[in-house]
Every structure is written in structure tokens, then in C-alpha cells.
């Protein structure tokens, strides 16, 4: 009874199968929404297929694949799910440190896009913050990080502005 209840659940096997299920569900829902959006693509009849054909073709395939994968996850036995989860190439999980780095990176990109602070200052702050998240904890490593961030920011700013003529804030 336990096995059958596990088998007919997206959480059967281990937790990572749940991630698979929800990513499939996201793809399925997204593809359905985009399929609806594709009805607004204008067609001037320049060619036989038109600009909307290929997106719809791809979206239909995606809907089919996501639906099939959801069905397979739903009906797979727990042992089979565990076997699939043991693939060493996919030992990736969402980690707080990764999310923190993405947050700092977003702030860095926002600062550069708005031009609110100079490239050099933004880069020094970004390198120090990311370095601390990445494991610089002792006084010595933080001092090293500050020195490297200043040298890097000045060097990169000069090279990209003067050599590659990039318009940096």
C-alpha cells in the first residue's frame, strides 16, 4: 500500500524528483500560455508557413514532452526514481550561497545599468561582497580581497574604457 501511494505521487522516491515534477509543470504551463500568446502573432502571408507556425510547432512538442515526463514521474516506482536521482552529473541543488551570489550580482548589474555609481566603486563592492559569500572570513583573506578588488576594478576600468572603448558608468 505504501509503495503504491508513493508511486502515484510526484514526491515518490526522493525530494529531487519533486523538482523535476515542478519544472515539468512550469514548462507545461508556460508553453500553454505562450501558445495562447502566439495567436496574436501577425501573419502578412509572405510565406506558406508564416511566422507563427514554428513557435506553435515547438510549443506543441514542449507540451507533449512535459506532459509525458509528468506522466512518467507519476507512474514510476520509487526505486526507479531513486536510480535516476543517483546520476552524479546532476548533483546540483539550490543552495543559499548561490542565491546570495545571484542577489549581489543582480544589485551589481542594476547599479551599472542605472549608472548610479561608478564602475570602479560598484566592482570593488561587488568583489568584496561576493568574496565574503564565497568563503573569505579571516582578517587576512578579507584584506587580500580588498586589495585584489581595488587593483582589479582600476585595471578592468582602464582596459575596457581605453582599449576596448566600452562606455562604462
Amino acid at each position, binding site marked *: 500500500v505504501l509503495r503504491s501511494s508513493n508511486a502515484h505521487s510526484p514526491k515518490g522516491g526522493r525530494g529531487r524528483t519533486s523538482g523535476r515534477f515542478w519544472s515539468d509543470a512550469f514548462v507545461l504551463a508556460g508553453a500553454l500560455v505562450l501558445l495562447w500568446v502566439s495567436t496574436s*502573432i501577425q501573419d502578412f502571408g509572405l510565406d506558406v508557413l508564416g511566422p507563427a507556425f514554428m513557435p506553435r510547432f515547438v510549443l506543441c512538442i514542449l507540451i507533449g514532452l512535459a506532459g509525458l515526463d509528468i506522466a512518467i514521474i507519476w507512474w514510476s516506482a520509487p526505486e526507479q526514481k531513486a536510480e535516476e536521482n543517483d546520476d552524479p552529473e546532476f548533483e546540483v541543488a539550490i543552495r543559499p550561497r548561490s542565491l546570495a551570489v545571484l542577489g549581489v550580482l543582480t544589485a551589481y548589474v542594476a547599479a551599472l545599468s542605472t549608472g548610479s555609481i561608478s564602475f570602479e566603486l560598484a566592482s570593488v563592492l561587488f568583489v568584496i561582497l561576493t568574496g565574503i559569500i564565497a568563503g573569505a572570513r579571516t582578517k587576512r583573506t578579507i584584506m587580500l580581497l580588498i586589495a585584489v578588488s581595488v587593483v582589479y576594478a582600476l585595471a578592468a576600468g582602464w582596459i575596457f574604457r581605453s582599449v576596448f572603448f566600452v562606455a562604462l558608468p
Partner: protein
Amino acid sequence: MTDTLAVLLSSFQYLLTPTGLGWCMLGTFIGIVVGAIPGLGGGMAMALILPITFSMYYLDGQIFLLGIYVGGVGGSLISAILIGVPGSPAAVMTSVDGYQLCKQGRAADAFATGILASFTGGMVSWVLLLAFSVPLASIARHFQSFDYFLFVMMGLVLIGVAGSGGMIRSLMSGFLGILAAMVGFDSVSAVTRFTFGTSLLASGFDLLAVLIGAFAVQRVVVELGVLSSGKPLVGGTTFRDVLVKMRSAISHWRTMLRASLIGTWIGILPGLGANIGAIVCYSVEKTISRKKENYGRGEPEALAAAESGNNATVGGALVPMIAIGIPGSGQDVILMAALIIHNVQPGPLLVQNNPEVFYGLIAAYFFANVFLLLIMTLSIRLLIKVISAPMFLLAPIVLSICVVGVISVNNRMADTWIMLAFGVIGYLMASTRIPLAPFVIGFVLGPLAEERLRSALMSTRGDLMPLVTSPTSMILIAILLVSLAIPLAKRLRKVGRN
């Protein structure tokens, strides 16, 4: 034939100039260093260097990137042997026996065998690249637009069937890549698609921003989440130690040759990278070896098989890229992108329109392998020190260069948001077991496939029959259906049984 030889010789001559040799050597050196650092890898370095190649002569850019590609696969053996953590997935099998050898105090043995095997793999696949790419390109020149569309579809299906992550999810990844490439203006009718009325999306996603986001940003973010603190076991291996042990490493020549041939074949199949090549070669050698019980306990023969296999895939993967225009791996997508940005189209006509690129790549691959052997042997002591570089210094600088690199291409800040978005998408895909390589391959090939299909239909006035009636199309459709049906039937039968 005489013309071919003349162009090939002139390519070798170009590679022998200070410029050609310099870019090749620098690329290989950077690739080895980056490949040696766990978590970085050649693909990430190639994505990062890509913007710099825009301002270079396109052949120099290709030579530079190819050097990084070859160096990245070869260099990953260093950390695999010393700390048991592969520098990139390509060295996953090297870390099994290489690390055991190192623990037994035989690091020099491991390095000598690994370096020699890497060189052998590279050279054998170079010979096959030279032998197959020209005939394959001349056959591919007769393909019609419908055939090319089917080729792209077949490539995506083969990636799905044989690649890692399962067929369905690999296919899903490939089609998501095609879908992402459809955002913006349609090249045939100039109608916008999926822009939601924003001007930011009207010109579509910049190829470079997508590649840097999906390869470099994603990779660094993933690695920061799983930081390891491995320390090298043996730091004192020198050039002399490696050279002395190379004599005994030569005794594994049969294994190296066999693994190189298998590795090249695996490389030719789309989507199967160096990691699959290493695993397959290791498994095959283990099955036929007389010392199979020593595999996994520090057997140099096992190391030779893994390293020859993974390096040979690089040359193999170049065959479909330069001959048909279908990239065999993620790194090949970056090489292709570097050509497309310079208005050079890889594919059957490359040998005709840009023979200097076609033969230049072949010549560069030869020299990159020679440099791999020389640099790794001569600077082994320095390279061992490199893997101790702290991630807290490397990661922020790499991410910052990603941002500035993307801005530098079009001088457009909006591209950094696209890069960031694809970094997040890549990270989410990796954590939900959707492989990334099919996505970028789909992103690059999708627009080409659509363009070919629509132009073919224009020429046949909407008649779809040639899609299923020409001999080439029929063969391709048969392969496509069989490749799809067999694994799907197996999978469904397995689910049904359970």
C-alpha cells in the same frame, strides 16, 4: 586534391607565424590553467574570452578559442589526480584511478600517463578530423534546405537519446533553446514574436549574453554553492619526474589507441561530450582488460583509457561542426558563435567559401595538442600550484568580467540583464536536472532550421512532399523515428512493468 593540400599547408604556415603560434599557445595555456581549477572549466573560459575575439582577426579568434577548448579538457586531469576533484566533468573517470595513484605516492606516474594519453587522444582524433571532415562536407554540400532542417531535428533527437539527463528532458531543453531564439523579429516576415510589447526584446536575445549567462554565470553560481576545500596530496612533482615516467606510460599504447578511436566516434555524435567519452572508454577498457580488478584502485591503464577518450572527443566534435554546421558540444557552439559573429557560416560551404578557417581549425587543433603536451609536461610544478587558487578571489572577478564582457559587445547595458536572466535559467535548469548543452545547441540551430524550412517551402510553393520523398530526407526521417521510438518504448515498458 592539390588545392586541398596547398590550403592545408598554407594553414600550417599561418599557424607557424608568431601570431598564429602565439594565440594557439596562449589559448592552450589559459585552457589548461582554467581547466585545472575545479569548477571553472574550458567552456566557461571560452564564453568569457568570446567578446575579446570580436576585435581580433577571425582566424586568430578561432585559434585562440580552440586552444582554450583543448587545454580545458586536458588541464582538468591535474586536480582530478591531485585532489580527486575533476577540474571539469571530462575528468570524472580520471579522478577515480588518478587520485588512487597519487595516494600511493605515484603522482608522477599518473601525470605521465595522463598527459601522454591526452596527447594521443588528441592526435588520433586530429588524423580522423583531417580524413573525414572534407569528404563529409562535400557530401553535405548536396543537401537541400529540407535535409538541413531534418539534420537539425536529428541532431536534437540524438542529443536527447544519447546525452545525459534522460531523453525527454534533453529534448525539452533543446526545444526550449529553439523557443528562446524565436523571441524578437522574425527574419522572414519582420514580425515580432513573444516581445510582449517591450523594445528590450525586439532584437531578440543576444547570442553572447545567452552563452555567457548559461555557461559562465551558471557555472560559477553552481560551484559557489558546493565549494570544496580539497588540498593537493603531492606538491613536489617536477618536469623530470614526469619525463622519466613517460617511458613506462608508452606501454599502454594499445589502450590509448583504442580509447582514442572510441572517443573520436563519441565526439562526432552530437551532444555527447568529453565526460561521456571518458566514461565509455573507461568502461570498455575495463571490460576487455586483463587487469580489470585493478581498475578503480590506481591502475595507470584505466587512467590512459579515460584521458585518451575525453581528449579524442574534442577532435570528433569538430567534424560535424565544420563539415555540416551542427555543433557536437557546448564548446563547439561557442566556436560557431565566434564564426557567425564574424559573418562566417560554419557548414558544408565553409570549406568552399572560407577554406582558411576550415583548414586553419584543423591545423590549430594539431598545434593545440602539441602545446598541451609541452605546456603540461614542462610546467607541471606551476600548474599544481594553480589549483590552490582560492575561489573567493576567482569567482567575483570571473562574474565581474562576464558583466563587462557582455556590455563591451554592443555597448548596451540591457544585455547584462539578459545574461543575468540566462544565468538564473541555467542554474534552475541544472538544479532541476534539465541538461544545458541541448539548450544552447537549440538556441544556435533553431533559427537556421526555421529559415531553411521556410525558404524551402517558398521554393516548392508550399509543397511538403520533398520533405519526405527525397532519398536523403527519407534516410534522415528513418533515423529520427528509430532514434526516438526505441528508447521511448523501452522507457514506457519499464514504467509499465513497475
